[in-house]
C-alpha cells in the first residue's frame, strides 16, 4: 500500500473521508454517467438526511469519546418530537425550547446519577431509554399528533442556495461549534482525557464529573434539537416514529472513527461518518437500488468496522496463520 494512503487510513478522522471518497467514486461509476447520482438533488437529499442523523450521531459520538454510551437518545428523539409538536402548536419557538429543555434536563439527571452512584452509563441510559419513551407514550396517549403550522413545516425543508435548509444549517452549525470547541479549547482536551484514561485525568485535575454531566446534557440537547426540527418538518410526531435512530447514529459515529473504548474520534470524523451513511442511502436510492439494501450496506459496513477495531483481531489472525503453517511459531 502507498505510504500516503496508509497514513490516511491510520488516522481515524481521515479514514472516514477516504472511505467517503471511495464510496462517491463507486456510486458514480455504478450510475454509468446517467447523472442520477452526481446532481444537486442528491446533494440536497444527503444534507437533509445529515440533518436527521447528524446531531444524534454527534450526541452519541461525544458520549462515546468520554467512554460512555447514551442509549437514551433512542427515547429522547421521540419524546422531544412529541414535546415540540405539542408545545409548538401554540408557538414554534417555544416548542423547540421546550424540547431542548427536556433533553438537557434528562441528560443532566442521568449524568448526575452516574456520578453519584458511580454507575456505568449503559445501565442508567437503558433505564432512561425505557422511561423517556414511556413518557412519550403517556404524553401522546399513544397516538400520532399532527402539527398544524404548515408554514413552519414547509420552512424546515425549504431549500435555499440550492443545498441548504433551516434543518441542515442547524445541524451543520452544531458540528462546526463542536469541532471548534474540540480543537481549540481546553474543554475539548479535557473531554478526550476523561475518555482515554479517567483516573489519570482526575489525578491531572480534569473536572471529570462536570465533563460527564456536561456531555450528557449536550447529548440530550442535540438529540432533542434533531427530534424537534424533524417532527416539525414531518408535521407530525408519535412515540414510535423516530425510535429507529439509535442504530444509524451509532453506525455513523463508529464509521467516523469513534471507539466505544473511549478517547478516540473527533466531531469532524463523526461528520464524515454521517456523510458516508447519508451518501450511501441517497446514492443507492438515486441509482434505483431497493431500500432494504440500506440496511444490508449499513450492517455490513458496521460489522467490518467492528472487526477492524477488535482488540484481538491481529493476535487471532497471526494464530490462525501459524496453525496453517504459513508463519514460524514465535521463539518463546
Amino acid at each position, binding site marked *: 500500500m502507498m505510504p500516503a494512503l496508509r497514513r490516511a487510513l491510520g488516522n481515524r478522522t481521515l479514514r472516514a473521508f477516504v472511505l467517503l471518497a471511495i464510496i462517491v467514486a463507486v456510486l458514480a461509476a455504478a450510475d454509468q454517467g446517467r447523472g442520477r447520482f452526481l446532481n444537486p438533488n442528491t446533494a440536497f437529499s444527503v444534507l437533509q438526511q445529515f440533518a436527521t442523523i447528524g446531531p444524534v450521531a454527534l450526541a452519541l459520538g461525544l458520549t462515546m469519546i468520554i*467512554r460512555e454510551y447514551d442509549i437514551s437518545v433512542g427515547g429522547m428523539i421521540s419524546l422531544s418530537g412529541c414535546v415540540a409538536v405539542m408545545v409548538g402548536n401554540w408557538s414554534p419557538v417555544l416548542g423547540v425550547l421546550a424540547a431542548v429543555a427536556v433533553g438537557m434536563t434528562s441528560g443532566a439527571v442521568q449524568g448526575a*446519577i452516574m456520578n453519584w*452512584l*458511580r*454507575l*456505568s*452509563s*449503559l*445501565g*442508567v441510559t*437503558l*433505564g*432512561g*431509554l*425505557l*422511561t*423517556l*419513551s*414511556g*413518557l412519550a*407514550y*403517556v404524553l*401522546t*396517549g*399513544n397516538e400520532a399528533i399532527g402539527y398544524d403550522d404548515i408554514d413552519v413545516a414547509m420552512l424546515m425543508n425549504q431549500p435555499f442556495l440550492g443545498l441548504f435548509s433551516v434543518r441542515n444549517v442547524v445541524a451543520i452549525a452544531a458540528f462546526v461549534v463542536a469541532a471548534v470547541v474540540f480543537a481549540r479549547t481546553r474543554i475539548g482536551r479535557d473531554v478526550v*482525557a476523561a475518555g*482515554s*484514561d*479517567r*483516573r*489519570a*485525568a482526575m*489525578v*491531572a*485535575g*480534569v473536572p471529570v464529573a462536570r465533563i460527564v454531566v456536561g456531555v450528557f446534557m449536550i447529548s440530550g440537547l442535540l438529540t432533542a434539537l434533531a427530534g424537534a426540527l424533524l417532527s416539525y418538518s414531518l408535521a407530525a410526531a408519535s412515540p414510535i416514529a423516530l425510535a429507529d435512530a439509535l*442504530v444509524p447514529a*451509532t*453506525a455513523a459515529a*463508529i464509521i467516523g472513527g469513534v471507539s*466505544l473504548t473511549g478517547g478516540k474520534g473527533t466531531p469532524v470524523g463523526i461528520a464524515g461518518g454521517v456523510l458516508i451513511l447519508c451518501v450511501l442511502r441517497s446514492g443507492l436510492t438515486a441509482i434505483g437500488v*431497493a431500500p*432494504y*439494501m*440500506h*440496511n*444490508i450496506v*449499513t*450492517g*455490513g459496513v*458496521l*460489522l467490518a468496522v*467492528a*472487526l477492524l*477495531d*477488535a*482488540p*484481538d*483481531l491481529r493476535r*487471532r489472525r497471526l494464530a490462525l496463520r501459524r496453525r496453517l503453517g504459513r508463519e514460524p511459531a514465535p521463539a518463546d
Partner: protein
Amino acid sequence: MSASDPRSVPAPLRLRSAAALVRLQRPGRAGRIVLWSVRGIALVLLVAFALTTPGFLTASSLLTMLTTMSFVGCVAVGMTFITLSGNIMSFSLGATLAATTVVFVGASLSIGPWGALLAAFLFSMALTGAQGWVIGYFRANPIIVTMASLALIIGVATWLTGGKGVYPHRGDLDFLKEGRIGPLPLPLAAFLVTVALGQLLLSFTRFGRNLYMVGSNPRAAEAAGIEGWRTVTAAYAVAGLCTAISAVLMAARYSSGDLTQGSGYEYQAISAVLVGGTAIQGGEGSALRTLFGAFVISVVEGLLVLNGFSTQMQYFLVGVIVLGVIMLQTVGGQR
C-alpha cells in the same frame, strides 16, 4: 509530554475499565440492608396492591398473564446468558425472533412442522452463535456487532421475503397453538422448562461455571485456562435457542411468520433480566432471577390495567422501575 497529559501518570494509577471504577466502590453492610429493605417494601406493596385489586387473583386472570409473559420470557432467559457473559445485551434478538418465525413457517410448508422446528432452532442458534463467535474470538464490541446484525438480518430477510409474511398450511401448527401440558398452556410450560433447563445449565455444568468466571473477570478466567471465546460463543448460541423457542410459539399463535413479530423484544427482555437482579456488568445473576423479573414486570402491568391505567402508563412505569433497580444495584454492592 505536558504536565496535563493524562499519559504522564504512572501506569499503576490508571484504571482500565468503567467496571473497575464500579468495583472500587463496594459498599458494605449498610448498603445491603438498604437494598433488601427497599426490595422488601416494594414486594410488600406489590402484594398488597395485588390483594386489593379485584379480579387479579383469579386462576384464569393469572394464567392469561403468565402465558402472555412467556413469549418475552424465553427471550429474556436467553438474554440472561449474554448479560452474564459480560456482554451487556444483544440488540438483535428481536430481529432474530422475526427471521426465525419466517424460517419456521416457511420450512413447515415443505418439510412439515417437526422438521421445521429443527430448522428454526438450528437457524437461530447459528445466527446468534456466529455473533457470539465474532464477539468472543476477536473481542469485537458486543453492542456494535449486534446492532450490525440487527440491520443485516432485517435487510437480508426483507430482501428474501419481499417484506411479505408467510402463512402455514391450515392446522399444521395447531399442536403448538392449542397444546397443553397438564393444566398449563404450552407457551407457559415451554417458558418454565426453558427457565429450569437454563438454571441447570448455569448451576451444574462446567459451561455454567466458566460463564460466571468469564463474565466477572475475563482475564482471570483466561489465566485459569478457560478459553473465553468458546464460552461466549456457547452463551450466544443458548440465547439463540431460547429465542427460537419463543419464535415458534409466536408463529403458531399468530399463524404467520413475518418480520414485524418480536420487535422491541430485546428491550423488554433486558428489562426482565435487570429487574430480576442480574448484574449488567456480567458475572452475577441467574435464569431464576430472570423468571422473577419477568413475573414482577407482568404483575405490575396487569395490576395497572385492572386499575384502569392506560397501556402507556405501563411503559413509563416499567422504565422507572428498571432505572430504580439499576441504581439500587450499586447501593447493595452486588458484584
